[in-house]
């Protein structure tokens, strides 16, 4: 029985490693890895991820194999078999653990700081394109400053979705808000930094674009912001990752990364629809 356990553990360990190495679901076409990164900061995160994958994966396999081997070797020994102690004893193992994990930690920690800092420590450039994102049950809306380059103020009491006033603008009194462009999809020019001002209308939500390697919560009452630069033209999904109610699973919007001129014409088009 002990030998069977050993075999099963080894098989499981190997089988578990396969999809992590092939990035697919056992030979099928289903891709099981982060989609291609389209951001300027993402590669750091990806390197970090693969570093960790190697270190964690090796320790995983090593531990499972040792477990399997010892169980195979030492289960069901005769009752008079002599009890041996692991060479080096506890002290050796403690030192090994501290050294191994310690170095692993430092390596990851330092690298991790770099990747993390790239996203969160560097402030947005002043010339970054400012867009406001509002999350509400259960849709994202985005607001671009119009010709005046200014965003009008928000008046929660003015929110009127029946008239598509999702942000609570007050065009009657607030001139700056009259030319604001409100859209249901986020279009951005490629290779230009975007500074996303995040506002939650009701409860907590989150802004998650896999390809951008960006995830940031919308916290009600606390207007946060993220900044990123997309490099690859295309259409991607923005999804909510913070449980926000019955429509959570269907709370999404599309991010289209356009060339500068496409972006300009898109913005004109949207402005005409306001």
């Amino acid at each position, binding site marked *: 029985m*002990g030998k069977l356990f050993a075999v*099963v553990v080894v098989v499981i360990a190997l089988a578990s490693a396969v*999809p*992590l190495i092939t990035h697919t*679901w056992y030979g*099928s076409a*289903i891709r*099981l*890895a*982060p*989609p291609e990164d389209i951001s300027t900061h993402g590669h750091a*995160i990806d390197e*970090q991820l693969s570093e*960790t994958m190697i*270190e*964690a994966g090796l320790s*995983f396999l090593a*531990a499972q194999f*040792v*477990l399997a081997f*010892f*169980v195979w070797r*030492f289960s069901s*020994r005769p*009752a008079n078999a002599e*009890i*041996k102690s*692991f060479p080096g*004893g*506890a002290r050796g*193992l403690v030192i090994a*653990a501290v050294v191994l994990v310690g170095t692993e930690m430092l390596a990851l920690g330092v690298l*991790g*700081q*770099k*990747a*993390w800092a790239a996203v*969160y420590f560097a402030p947005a450039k002043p010339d970054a394109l400012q867009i406001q994102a509002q999350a509400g049950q259960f849709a994202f809306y985005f607001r671009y400053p119009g010709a005046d380059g200014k965003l009008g103020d928000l008046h*929660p009491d003015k929110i*009127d979705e029946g008239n598509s006033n999702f942000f609570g603008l007050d065009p009657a009194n607030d001139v700056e808000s009259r030319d604001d462009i409100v859209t249901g999809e986020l279009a951005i020019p490629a290779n230009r930094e975007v500074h996303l001002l995040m506002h939650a*209308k*009701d*409860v*907590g939500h989150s802004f998650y674009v896999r390809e951008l390697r960006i*995830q940031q*919560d919308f*916290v*009600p*009452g*606390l207007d946060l912001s993220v900044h990123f630069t997309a490099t690859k033209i295309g259409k991607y*999904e923005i*999804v909510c*990752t*913070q*449980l926000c*109610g*019955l429509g*959570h*699973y*269907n709370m999404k919007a599309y991010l289209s990364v356009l060339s500068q001129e496409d972006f300009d014409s898109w913005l004109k088009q949207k402005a005409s629809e306001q």
Partner: protein
Amino acid sequence: MSEGSAQTVQHQHAPPQSFIRKHVFSLDHKVIGLQYYGLALLAVVIGMGLSWLMRIHLVWPNAPIPGLQWLSKTGAPGGIMTPEYYLSLLTMHGTLMVFFVLTNAPFAAFGNYFLPIQIGAEDMAFPRFNMMSFWTTFVAFCILVAAFFVHDGPPLAGWTAYAPLSAVGPDAGPGEGLGQTLWGLSIFVFCIASLLGSLNFIATTLDLRTKGMTLARMPISTWAWFITSCISLLAFAVLLPASLLLILDRVAGTSFFIPAGLVISDRLQPHSGGSPLLWQHLFWFFGHPEVYIAILPAMGIVSHILINSMRRPLLSHKVVIYCMMGIGFLSYMVWGHHMFVSGMNPFSALMFSFPTLVITIPATIMTLIWLGSLYGSRLRITAASLFALGFISMFVSGGVSGFFLAQPSIDIFLHATYFVVGHFHMVMGVAAIFGVFAGTYFWFPKMTGHMMDERLGKLHFWFTFIGTYCIFMPFHYLGLAGNVRRYSAFVDDFLVPLIPVHRFITIVALLTGAGQLIFLYNLIHSRFRGAPAPPNPWECTSLEWSMPSPPPFDNFGGNHPVVYRDPYQYGVKSSTGDYLMQDSPEEAKA
């Protein structure tokens, strides 16, 4: 004045006679332990049923589940689950499993039964508190289950109940009415129960150890329960105020967690200035130690069983105990790693990341010591030891994925994906449950006086071990692909291609769940038909095996054992074979 006349030595509580005092409102720690076990069993059956429904809905979203419409007419019109009902099931599953299974079974159930015996006490320090803490837990359970049947649906804010969704009330949609309030109330009551329980455990361990039972001579399981009770005392003492403030926000219109200017369902909410992050901080300050409340007792139980089946002590008794202490201590400094993307200061994110990585050191040391102790042992393979070995395997698998989530930069991508779900199900859910299974197979003879069917036990192990790996390993892969958790259906273009993997998981989950019937059958059958158990079937050294099975009412018949040595004297030559009981004065022959 006839003061003190006609007084005799009397025990604190004589054996009760009436059925009620014997089996319902019993003060006996053994009965209470079994009551906790029963409650956990009930909760786990419900919780697993819910997970079945969720898994089925996930992969066949528009298929009616026959009979579901009777469970909830609005939740499942025509048997087709609505999104909000899925989230309610998810919330109930999480709450039941974390609070009423993972906190109750390894800690309250086994701890109540065996901690006093293992230290040679005749009962807990405060038997009445003990009874109160169980029945308070039971009340909390009833309140939670009641939330299933309220008019506007069971709560759906998840077991973490993030404010303001959990705080604003019915405007936020179905499940945010009375149901959510009951959820908060249930947690509040549960906190009181856990505080009473922990207080009892600590006082018992410190004061009621029998002669010669020094702290260093306590079995590792006792140490685990003791450390756990210290953790839970402080953790639940924080969740208690938090849940109170949440309830007040809901019913009294206060604004602790609800900021100003929220517009929900076209209505401007009459609140001002609250802080949603405050809830997250308070909750996770409890929530992360809670993980260790679930896993530490399992570690203790597993070590205890492993030593017994290896027929040798661990390489170091002390180091393991220090590691558990270290884990317990560090568990209070890492809560922020649940909030990396909640807009916390990026520096503090790193401050939380570091101890999170550090906490892997004691965990690794323990793992290495378990493995190192296997070397050169005389490992006996029983159902119990299989589950103990399975625990190690699971703990490793679930542990390494912690490496990823501990790093904020990677967490940006993996946060709130199935990677997290796989991680905590393995390391906290399955591993802890393996500890409970191991404990059950190991202590069942002592608790009931009947042996359990070993063959069925081993069959059950293979089902569970392989099954759980097939369920929870793929979760990690899905997470790496960016599969978001807590979705009631996968409609995004990005997620639809992943559905076949989910279908595989669902099918395995159904099978594995069915495999648990073997355990239930074994439990019930052995309880009545099992072979009578000798006092010490596993040739174990700790005190619980020095008495008949099941133990008499006051454990040691008024005579308190004297402990002569450390808990794990295996691999020695003695009149009894290769081991020496803690309370035997006999000296081991060289």
